[in-house]
């Protein structure tokens, strides 16, 4: 699969780590400063994990990697995450 998906697909994997639904969380891109819900991010399959890119500038927001039964999330491109109604 070479085409990207979007942040909706991260709802399950991110529920491993976060209590709230993270597809509705708002994140700020460290590269361009865009502030958007995570559902709109571009998600590239990078088995065994995903590379998540900013929908505005394309820079990497985060990566998720499965190492056996452990999930490692690298948040290098996200300078803020906000959850709540």
């Amino acid at each position, binding site marked *: 699969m070479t*085409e990207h*998906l*979007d942040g909706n697909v991260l*709802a*399950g994997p991110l*529920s491993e780590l976060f209590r709230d*639904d993270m*597809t509705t969380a708002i994140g700020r891109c460290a590269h361009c400063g865009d502030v958007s819900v995570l*559902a709109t991010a571009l998600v590239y399959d990078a088995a065994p994990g995903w590379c998540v890119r900013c929908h505005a500038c394309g820079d990497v927001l985060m990566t998720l990697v499965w190492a056996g039964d452990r999930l490692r999330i690298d948040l290098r491109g996200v300078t803020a995450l906000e959850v709540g109604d």
Partner: protein
Amino acid sequence: MVGAWLVGTVAETRKETSTGRSILLDVPDWPGNIAGQHVDVRLTAPDGYQATRSYSVASAGDGSRVQLAVDRLPTGEVSPYLVDDLMTGDLLEVRGPLGGWFVWKPEQTAPVQLIAGGSGVVPLVAMLRSHGASGSTAPMQLLYSVRAPHDRFFADELETLGNVTYAYTRAVPAGWPSPPGRLTKDALAAATLPASESPAVFVCGPTGFVEAVATWLVELGHEPGAVKTERFGG
């Protein structure tokens, strides 16, 4: 807890198209779901290898019955098993309901335009069902882009669920007024609620379809924030 894996039992499967079918699951611990949400399905091979994919839920509301609809992707790891091999009585691991963004709730009163490409119609069927079951008076209509008449998911039910317009890309029914072809910006504009009515728009389908439609919608004057998208791939 959202992240917990649940075990469902296949109650019924139904052929929907030549490459797709719907699957009714009994999931005893299912908490109910909002229209538009999805589940992750996890398959485990005898050697322990696991593959997980997301599938939209076609059902909405309370109860422990969950309906999925799956199209077989020729190179897929999970969909061929779900479409060709899974049988009534089999057990299936699911996690969900997932996702709180690409959803429609009956308390939403704005007009709604649903736009589906292929099996992207599944979460939008959940929205039409929820709309009908709740007695919502918000206008809701669907534009369904699909290869041919026999490729329509939930074809009979869509006839009764209300306002559906079809855009056929490969083959049309006898007597159809226009030849088959890919959806265009003009055809999109003619078949959907105008931006002046400020509809909530939900677009679901393959990545290329979703990106083209979302771009056209914004060019047609829709607020980017009013257009929600969900892409699926292989």
